[in-house]
């Protein structure tokens, strides 16, 4: 059963999904063994001595009605986060359907895909920070790194800790959970998408660029590399962010041009502009990293931004259903 269909039906309620897809699916049944294996209960048939549950192909490759050969595989890995990043991904609305239809298979996502263990995938979007007191999280983050070609820290918590930086335990219903780290402190992260929540458009752009990077021609690969480089540099730069970065990395460095992008980007309105410069209300700052990343003087690529017109047109074109 195609995830895309499943998702579409979730959104638009087109009747029973499994029934519909089984009816429409033409001949691919020979490759369907894993699916049928999953539906059959292996316990009844196997002798207890032969049972090796670990070897069963629990993780299924999603089947499409019209398989698109060169799609990339994307997973959403949920660490300690609020699911807001995932909601942002879904908030691409029909754009998400286009992405799932043409460019990416969602192979793992606790909320939207029925897959229990982290599979091999091209791109892992990791939401949330890692709780050191939770063994499962520790295992899964390492597993993610092992199984994903590109690990994307999705959102403030995964990149910089965000509000989980303020956690010190004692909360319901896991009072013993008190130590949280951005994923970059435990594994190597390739790309950062900061902000709380990251915007649907930024997630979309990264997904499309990842697709071009992995499946595109040379020219497209070059564009995708140029686009992703600043976000890769953010990932390489470290796991700490704060509104103070506007002071230490921009104003103290003599770079602020007073444009106000930081104030517009701040989710919690901790940044206001006073006499043309950012004023940071540090008590309000949640350490999501949006202000600094949005600043035109944190990174700016003439190669990419100079082509804003053609890139915007390209994105518009490829996102057509």
């Amino acid at each position: 059963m195609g995830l895309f269909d499943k998702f579409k039906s979730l959104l638009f309620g087109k009747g029973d999904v499994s029934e519909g897809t089984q009816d429409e699916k033409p001949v691919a049944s020979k490759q369907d063994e894993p699916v049928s294996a999953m539906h059959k209960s292996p316990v009844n048939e196997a002798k207890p001595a032969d049972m090796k549950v670990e070897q069963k192909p629990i993780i299924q490759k999603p089947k499409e009605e019209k398989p698109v050969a060169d799609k990339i595989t994307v997973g959403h890995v949920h660490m300690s986060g609020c699911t807001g990043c995932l909601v942002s991904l879904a908030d691409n609305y029909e754009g998400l359907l286009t992405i799932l239809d043409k460019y990416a298979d969602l192979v793992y996502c606790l909320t939207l895909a029925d897959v229990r263990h982290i599979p091999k995938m091209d791109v892992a979007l990791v939401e949330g920070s890692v709780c050191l007191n939770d063994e499962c999280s520790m295992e899964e983050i390492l597993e993610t790194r092992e199984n994903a070609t590109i690990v994307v820290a999705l959102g403030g918590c995964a990149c910089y800790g965000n509000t989980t930086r303020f956690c010190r335990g004692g909360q319901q219903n896991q009072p013993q959970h008190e130590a949280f780290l951005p994923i970059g402190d435990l594994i190597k992260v390739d790309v950062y998408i900061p902000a709380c929540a990251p915007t649907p458009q930024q997630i979309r752009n990264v997904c499309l660029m990842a697709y071009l990077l992995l499946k595109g021609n040379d020219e497209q690969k070059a564009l995708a590399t140029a686009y992703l480089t600043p976000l890769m540099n953010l990932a390489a730069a470290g796991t700490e962010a704060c509104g103070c970065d506007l002071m230490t990395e921009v104003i103290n460095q003599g770079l602020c041009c007073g444009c106000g992008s930081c104030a517009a980007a701040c989710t919690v309105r901790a940044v206001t502009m006073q006499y043309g410069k950012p004023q940071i209300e540090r008590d309000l700052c949640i350490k999501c990293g949006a202000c600094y990343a949005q600043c035109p003087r944190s990174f700016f690529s003439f190669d990419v931004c100079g082509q804003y017109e053609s890139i915007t047109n390209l994105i518009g074109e490829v996102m057509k259903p």
Partner: protein
Amino acid sequence: MEYLGQYKAVYKAKAGCEDILAKSQDGGIVTAMFAYALETGIIDGAIVAGPGDEAYKPEPMIATTVDELLAARGTKYSISPNMALIKEATRSYGLDKIGIVGTPCQIQALRKAQLYPIGLRDVPDKIALALGIFCMENFPYQGLFQMVEDHCATKIDNVTKMDIGKGKFSVYTERGVNSQIPLKVTHKYEQPGCHVCLDYVANMADISTGSVGTPDGWSTVFVRSAAGEAAFNKAVEAGWIIAESMDGVKPGLELVTKLATEKITKNQSYIEHRNHAEHAALKPLRNPYI
């Protein structure tokens, strides 16, 4: 040519409407373009540098009527963080088609925001018309205040117009030109961030405009993008803007190119200088350009 960016056409132009010209800085292009775009629905509102609570201290504002646009006419030589309202324009004001005017750095910020909307949800597709203004440098308000009150010995509240041109910073009151100082006096009050700027004529705007290159009362206009071209041509057709060829106009593009080259090469060498460790610090200063 590289210093002037890509453009489809360049004109000598001014607003067709006397009301706009009465208090505009030069040709009134920004006001006229936005007024036309508002009237015809190309934009729902425009982010402009409006009057602030102190004289000549600009505050970004969202103009949704021509009257509000008129109130924001004229250059204020200080920082108006127009990008600060880019998200608010789509929220409190509910704009779907935003116009924004900005200095080259602000237009760069805008284009970065469209391609990397890190904290700007649902904003990128709502930018309808971005007008850029030529900019050599900008002054923090306190710096501008010092220039006017201290060096020009003029009460800032009495100033009717400020102007930079022909190597001088001029302050006008109702009695005409009150005081002029050479630009070299003003350099120390410039915003430090301007010294790493590599753009003079807002290369990434839909339309960029400024006084340099054309006679008094006119502006030089670069039409750059498809959106800019469509809007500009319609505004000319409708008589909101009078546009003439730049051929034979003195000082013309030669001067624009000269100033652009000067600014950019000077700032490039400053960035280079910052990159060297011996520049005061143990580690090189940060270079924002990738």
